[in-house]
């Protein structure tokens, strides 16, 4: 399957969001979900049923890594953080996303 997953829009988008969210600091799953929801003004809601599988897949591909840690309230949680491979992938994906976005905008005449 490797890098040919671009045809899967949903999966690609979710991966992109997750990578972006954990790009700057390690976050646990719940925080990732709430952050995406908060930043997008509640427009994007990541369902738990999709979130964790996606996290695990990304980790498997070596794009993020995870470890057990403690939250502010001293609870044990799994924290996810981007890897250098993930960072590279994020940049690529953002790049291509922007290109596509620009293309679409041009076609729609909204540029």
């Amino acid at each position, binding site marked *: 399957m490797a890098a040919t997953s671009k045809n899967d829009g949903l999966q690609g988008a979710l991966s992109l969001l997750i990578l972006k969210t954990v790009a700057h600091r390690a976050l*646990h799953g*719940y925080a990732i979900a709430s952050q995406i929801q908060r930043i997008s003004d509640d427009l994007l809601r990541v369902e738990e049923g999709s979130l964790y*599988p996606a996290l695990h897949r990304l980790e498997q591909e070596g794009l993020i890594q995870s470890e057990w840690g403690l939250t502010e309230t001293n609870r044990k949680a*799994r924290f996810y953080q981007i890897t250098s491979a993930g960072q590279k992938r994020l940049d690529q994906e953002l790049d291509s996303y922007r290109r596509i976005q620009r293309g679409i905008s041009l076609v729609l005449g909204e540029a």
Partner: protein
Amino acid sequence: MSIFRRLYASIFPDSVRTRAEEEAAFHVDMKADDYIAQGMSPREAQLRARRDFGNVAMMQEETGNRDLFLSLEGFANDARVAWRRLRRSPVFLATSVFLLAFGIGVNTAIFSVVDHLLLRPLPLPNPDRLYVVEEYVEGKIRNSNPARLADWAARVESFERTASTYGETIGLDDNGSRRGVQVMRMVGDWPAVLGLSPVEGRSISPTEDNVALLTRSGAARFGKIGSKLRLGEEIFEVVGILPDEVALGEEVGILTPAPRSVMNASRRAGFLTVAARLRPNATLAAATAQAEAAAQSMGKDHPETDRGMTVKLVDAQAAWTSDIRKSAWMLQGASMLLLIITIANLAALLAARTKDRERETRIRSFLGATKWSIVRLHMVEAGLVSLLGCFAAAGVAVLGLKYLQNAFANQFAAISIVTIDARVFTFVLALGLVATLLCTAIMASRRSLGMRASALVVIEASLGLLLVAAAFGIAKEFADRQSRPLGFAPQNLLVARVDMPWSVDNSDIEQVIDRGLEQFGALPGVMSVAVVDRLPLGGGTQSAKPVIRGRQEPVTEEVGFRMATPTYFATMTIPILAGNGLGEKDTVVVNDVLSRRYFDGNPIGRYISNDGKKFFRIAGVVGGVRTESKNKEAMPEVWLSYRDWAWPKLEFILSTSQPASALAPSLRRLVTQLHASALLDDVTPLQQRLDKVDLEPRRGRDMLALFGFVALCLVIAGVYGVMAGESLRRTREMGIRLAIGATPTNIFGLILKQALKLAAISLVIAIPLGLYSGQLEPRMLIYAGLAIATAIAFAALWPAWRAARIAPATALRTE
């Protein structure tokens, strides 16, 4: 918790599974805290958070699966997932394992017979040099005798040697009690022809007297080298032990040379099948040419018996298995058809599961599973079902083989050597593998569910039709057989077979019959007693071309010359149609077939002879009785009195209403007093003996009927599955149709029509196929077609009814 899971957890303690559980718990807690912050009660918040998260178990499962695909691409893990999935649908699992067990098991049993008896070379050294010499006169095969057997060996240069055997039941005295044992009498050096030499002791020359060989298993029962066996009136010394193969599967422990009287039998006699071993460098072509020349020279030297004789050398294996060949291949073909139907059905079942699988597959690909890993999972799942099926099939195969051995034991003793061994087992595993691959291909196929399942149902129904037609055909044949008039009444008759050696004097036989008639008749409850040489339907007869005094053209047909006591016809309720029964010396009666064919129905007072020397006056005409089998009309027969025609294997027939068990002890006691070498075989109702004749065709019919029935059930199940899926899939469409004015009857008809379309396609495929095969009667094909069409319509009834009574509103809401 499954064993796989436990094993897995013990190897990988910090598995993704526990991690997923903890993560989920943490997530739910965090979310619940949020809800509490928004003012919910803790309990409500927890519930809500949990509901948001969805089914935790499911989530675990899916995460766990992902782990399988990506972290450990091990077979055990696929098996674990597949097993878990199968366990979720026990009905499917049980059904498919059962189907496979039956399909593969039956095939294995039949294949083991085919393999051992038809495919493998005989279990003898250099079996390719072993031939049977078949003698033909006027195109008809005939049995040989010791004189010709010796001629073949002497006149055919390519034959190393020739030999033959015949079986005999002889009384063995063992510590004062006497029991009948099967003895193989050898004409020529039988073990040498088979290529066997003694494993212990020595071989014997064909002319030695009073020596015996034992088979290895016979040695366990009868003694060792040097033991003395008291057989009949003689004492035999055991001089050698032979491998069991020498008996070719017959249940025989003792072998002796044929007695002198038999070795000196007339050239007219016919009771041997000659086996010949070619010399190491001889070719079949050369041997055949020499044998043909030998046949001609024998015809010159012995024109009265061998004129016009032709000869054929037949591969020994083919000759010895000819009785079973056709039945075995037919059953193998039928069971193969059944197996294909079974696998098609299994595939249809699997395809029907695809709906639920599609969701899983989507999740899996979403989780990162590659296409290959999904196919692999399908394969492992199908393989798991097949493996379980194969295990269960082994059991079915063992039982099936027992059944077959029972069915054919009468007709073909060598079937007892068949076992289920590594080779056959490999065959089973291969079948399992084929089933696995086919099912995988079907599961992984991208065609629509409906198409796939319909195609499978058509395959099933077409093959099922052929099987059912074959079953109908054989059932009809059997029914015809049963309904044929026998020509006698078997009710209230017991048969006691009294065996004497072939070497016994004719006067002794006459005396035994006289005494037997008198003493058996005096037993309480016995109305009448008769003796005959062979029971009807048993097959075999003494026959000759009769000479009729006053008739110009010679009779070219062999007619039966039979021996009976005068009481025979009345005891068997065979009608005396004209004149008297058997009575005075030198008179005979003939049956109506012979009377019509050679005397225009008026034979009384004419003279007939079997050898042209001694003529008998025809005193009466009796009804014809089917002698050879139920399939063959009564043949022309001449009945001679036991005073004129001696035969040492006596069938005493007792007319009595007493059960066999009541008379057997007294009969046993009386028989020992009749003659020193007389032996009572067993006492059975005549009906039971006749049933034995029917056993093999009956078993054949039962087996095919069972196959046909299973095929019908499979078709019904398959069609039901497809139609139920179809009507479910089209629920919305049905709702719309109902909403815009279709009546439930229309809907009902719609589904039914679809089923009948499948039936029609199957008929169009199968009937020409059946006609083309040439093995199936057109009428039976049509009946089978009707049966299959009815089965399909029947199977579609319930889904159609369910579709018709759906409420439009419900249907429209369905997505």
